[in-house]
C-alpha cells in the first residue's frame, strides 16, 4: 500500500498533471496577436465565443486585450479580465507585428511559447504587415468569421493547395533559430480594406478588412530584416532543396499563354571554393507543369523563362534581405565543416559574394 501511495503522490506532485480544469470553465484561445505596447507587450487573444447554441454551426469569436512589461505580465492582465480561464492548448496562430519582430526580436515570445506547458508548439507563426497585429485578428476572410481560422487556412489551406507560402510552427521556428546556417522565414500577412457597406462574413462592429498573404518575412537571428514579396514566393519555394508540391502559374511569353507548375524537384550541389575562399553552389530545379492553353510555350522556352525568374528571385534574396533564407549556409555546415568554421561567424555576409548558379528544367505532364 505504501509504495502505491508513494507512486500516486509522485505522479501527482512531480508529473505536473494535477491541472484538472472543468471543460465548461475555459475560454478556448485560438489566436494571439503580439504588438509593442506602451510599456512592453500588448497581447490580443481571440477566443471562441461559446454563447451560441450547440446546434449553431456558425462559430464566432471575441477578443481580449492585455498589456504588460513582459509576456507573463500581459498574461496576468488578461486573466484578470475573464471569468473563465484562458486555455492556450488549442492555439492555432500567433501573429507578431513587424515592428516588434524587427526591433525586439522573436526570442522572448518563442521562449515563452516553448516553456509554457499548455501552449501547443504546432501553432503557426505569422508576421503582420498591417498597422498592428491586433488589426489582423480584427479582420477576417471572405467566408469565415474567426480571424485565426482565416489565418490558419490562408497559410495552410485545408484543400492542400501549396506554393503560396510556408507554414512555420513554433517548434520549427525555435529550431531554425538555433540551427547553424539557417534563417527564419515566416509568412507575412496584411489586411486589405473591404468594400464600404459590405459586412461580408464579419459580425457587426468588426473591421471589414480581409486578411491576405503578403510575402515572406526574412530574419537574421530573431530579428526581421526584410520581405520577399508575394509574387516571388513560388520561385523561392522552388529554389529550396528537395521535392515539393508548388502550384503556381508561370507566365511564359507575355501573350497570355501560361503553364501551371505542379511540382518541383530541386537539387543543390556544393562546389569547391574559389580563389576568394567563398563557396559555390549549383541549384538545379526540375519542374513539372500542365499546359493551360493550346499556345503555351514549348518546354525549352518555358525552362528558360523559369530559369530567368529563379535567378531574379535569387538576386533579390542576395541583395535585399541580408538573410540566408535558402539555408545555403546549412548546406555548407553539413557538407564542408572546415569551410563553415572559417565563414560561419560572418554568415550570411559571404553569401553575397558566393557563386550561385541556377538552372531550370521543364517537363509538361498534361496538355
Amino acid at each position, binding site marked *: 500500500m505504501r509504495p502505491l501511495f508513494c507512486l500516486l503522490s509522485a505522479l*501527482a506532485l512531480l508529473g505536473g498533471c494535477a491541472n*484538472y*480544469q*472543468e471543460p*465548461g470553465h475555459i475560454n*478556448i484561445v485560438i489566436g494571439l496577436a503580439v504588438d509593442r505596447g506602451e510599456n512592453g507587450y500588448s497581447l490580443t487573444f481571440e477566443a471562441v465565443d461559446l454563447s451560441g447554441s450547440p446546434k449553431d454551426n456558425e462559430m464566432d469569436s471575441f477578443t481580449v486585450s492585455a498589456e504588460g512589461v513582459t509576456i507573463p505580465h500581459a498574461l496576468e492582465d488578461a486573466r484578470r479580465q475573464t471569468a473563465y480561464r484562458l486555455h492556450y492548448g488549442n492555439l492555432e496562430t500567433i501573429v507578431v507585428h513587424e515592428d516588434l519582430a524587427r526591433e525586439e526580436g522573436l526570442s522572448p515570445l518563442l521562449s515563452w511559447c516553448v516553456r509554457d506547458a499548455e501552449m501547443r508548439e504546432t501553432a503557426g507563426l505569422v508576421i503582420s504587415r498591417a498597422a498592428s497585429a491586433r488589426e489582423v485578428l480584427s479582420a477576417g476572410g471572405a467566408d469565415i468569421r474567426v480571424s485565426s481560422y482565416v489565418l490558419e487556412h490562408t497559410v495552410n489551406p485545408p484543400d492542400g493547395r501549396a506554393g503560396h507560402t510556408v507554414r512555420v510552427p513554433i517548434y520549427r521556428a525555435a529550431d531554425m533559430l538555433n540551427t547553424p546556417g539557417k534563417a527564419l522565414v515566416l509568412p507575412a500577412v496584411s489586411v486589405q480594406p473591404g468594400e464600404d457597406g459590405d459586412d461580408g462574413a464579419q459580425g457587426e462592429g468588426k473591421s471589414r478588412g480581409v486578411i491576405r498573404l503578403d510575402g515572406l518575412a526574412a530574419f537574421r537571428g530573431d530579428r526581421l530584416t526584410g520581405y520577399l514579396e508575394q509574387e516571388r514566393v513560388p520561385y523561392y519555394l522552388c529554389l529550396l532543396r528537395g521535392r515539393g508540391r508548388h502550384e503556381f502559374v508561370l507566365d511564359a511569353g507575355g501573350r497570355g499563354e501560361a503553364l501551371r507548375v505542379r511540382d518541383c524537384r530541386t537539387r543543390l550541389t556544393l562546389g569547391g571554393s574559389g580563389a576568394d575562399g567563398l563557396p559555390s553552389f549549383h541549384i538545379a530545379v526540375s519542374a513539372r507543369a500542365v499546359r493551360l492553353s493550346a499556345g503555351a510555350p514549348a518546354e525549352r522556352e518555358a525552362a528558360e523563362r523559369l530559369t530567368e525568374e529563379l535567378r531574379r528571385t535569387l538576386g533579390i534574396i542576395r541583395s535585399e534581405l541580408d538573410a540566408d533564407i535558402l539555408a545555403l549556409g546549412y548546406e555548407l555546415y553539413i557538407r564542408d565543416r572546415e569551410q563553415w568554421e572559417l565563414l560561419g561567424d560572418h554568415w550570411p555576409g559571404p553569401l553575397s559574394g558566393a557563386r550561385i548558379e541556377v538552372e531550370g528544367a521543364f517537363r509538361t505532364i498534361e496538355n
Partner: protein
Amino acid sequence: MSEAPRPEVRSQHPPETLALTGSLDQNAQTLQELFQGDDGFVLRPIQNRYFEERRYFLAYCAGMMDQHFVSETIIKPLASERLERTGSDTAGTVLRQVLYAHGPGKQAETFADLVEAAAYGDAVVLLPDGSALIFGAQGFPIRGITEPEGEKLLSGPREGFCEALMPNLTLIRRRLRTNDLKLRFMTFGERSRTRACVCYLDSLVNRPVLAELERRLDTIFIDGTLDSHYLAELVSDHPYSPFSSLGSTERPDAVVSKLLEGRVAVLLDGSPVALTLPYLFIENFHAGEDYYLNYLYASFSRMLRILSFCAAALVPGAYIAVTAFHQEILPLPLLINIVREKQSVPFPVGLEVFSLLVIFDILRETGIRMPSGLGQAMSVVGALVLGQAAVAAKLASSMVIVVVALAGVTSLLIPKLSAATLVLRYGILMLSLLLGFPGLMLGLSAALAHILGLRSFGMPQTVLSGNLRAQDMKDIAVRAPLFAMRERGPVSPNRRRSRNAAWRDTK
C-alpha cells in the same frame, strides 16, 4: 392441545465409520434416528406374505423417487417372493437374487451411504440379515436439454447442459466414443453431499494440472456446493482477482473441444455450468461458434471483442483525462462542442460520467433480471428516453451519453470479463480523474502487470510470455483455418499433429 416437544435433530451427516449392524431392527432404528425431524423421510416395513421371518424396511425420501419403479421393482418382489433357501444360502442372498433380477442395485457398507442414497432419491432396502441394498430410483424432475441462454450460436450444436450430472456426462460421452475419456467422481459439501465429476482424456491431459486440481479439490471443506462456481472460487489461483482462473461453459461441444486440447473439465450435480482448466486469458475473447463459422469472420469477431474490452475499460477514463486534463489533444471543433455543452451542465465531468455509468449499470442489471420482453423494453427506455431526457434537461452532455453508451455496449460483448471490465472501468476512471493520462496509464499498467502474472493451476494464463511458436499463435487473436492449426494448443503436453488435410499437402 400442545405439540409434543420434538427430539433433538441429528442434522450432522453420519460419519463414514458408522457401519451397519447385524440387526434389521437396530439398523432401521438408527436410520430413523438419523432422519429424525424430517417429515419427508419414509421408513416403510414390508412383510413377505409367504415367510413370516422375512421382514424388510424400505427407506426413501418422498417426492424424490419414481414411485412406479419402486412399487414394481422392489415392493412387489419383496412382498410376494416365494423362493426357498437352499444349502448355505442366507435370506439376504436369496433376496438379492430376487431384487437384482428386477433392477440394478449395490450393497451399502455404512449409514453414510444409506443417508446419501435416500436423500438423493434412491431406494434403500434394509434386509433381515442386517445388510442393506441401494437402488437407483430417482424420479425427481429435471430440466430438459435446451440451448444455453447465455451462449446462443448462429450456427452449431444447440444442446446445452442441464442441472443433472449424469445426463450432462452423457452429452459429453456421446461426443467422445473412446475409452480414453476418464471420469472421476467426487463428493463435495459436508451437508449437501453434491457429486462432481472430473473429466479428461487420459492420453492428452496435462498431468501436473490434473494433479494440482485434485490436490485442491481434496482440500475443500464446505457445507454445500450449489453451483460449479462455488468450486471455481474455492480452487481459483487468484481468488481476489476479477479475472477468472477457470473457464466455464454450458455447452457440451465446448467442453469436448477443451478436452481434446488436453484440458480438464469439472461438472457438478445441480449446475449446468462445466468448468474447464487450465484457462488462458485469451479464452475470454473466444466464443463457441468461432470454430463453426468462417475463420475470417471469426477472427474479425475476436478482434472486435478485444477492442471492445479495451473500449469498455478505457473509454470513460480516457474521456475524463482528455476533457479535464489534456484538452489540447482534441480537435478544435470537438473541443468547442464539448465545452459549449458543458457550460450548461451543472455537474463536474467526473461526477457526470460516474453517475451515468452507474445508471447504465442499473439499467443493465434491471434488463437482465426482468423477463426478456420487458428487459428489452427497459434497455430501450434507458438508452433512448432517459439519455435524451438527461441531455434535454441539461443533466448530462450528449458526449457523455455517447461515451457511457459506448462503454456499456462494448462491455456486453464480453460477458466473461464483465467483472474485470467493471473493476477496470471504475478504477481507471478514478485514476484518470485524479491524474489525467498518467493516471490512466498507471491503471492500465497495473492491469497489464496483473494480467501477465495470472496463472491457472500452475500454468501462466498468458503463455506468450514464454517460448513463442507459430502454431501457438494460430488460435489467439485470430483463428487460423482448421487445417493450418496442425498441433494442439499449448496446454497439452502431447503436441503431436492433431489435425490434417492431407490432400492439401499432396496437391
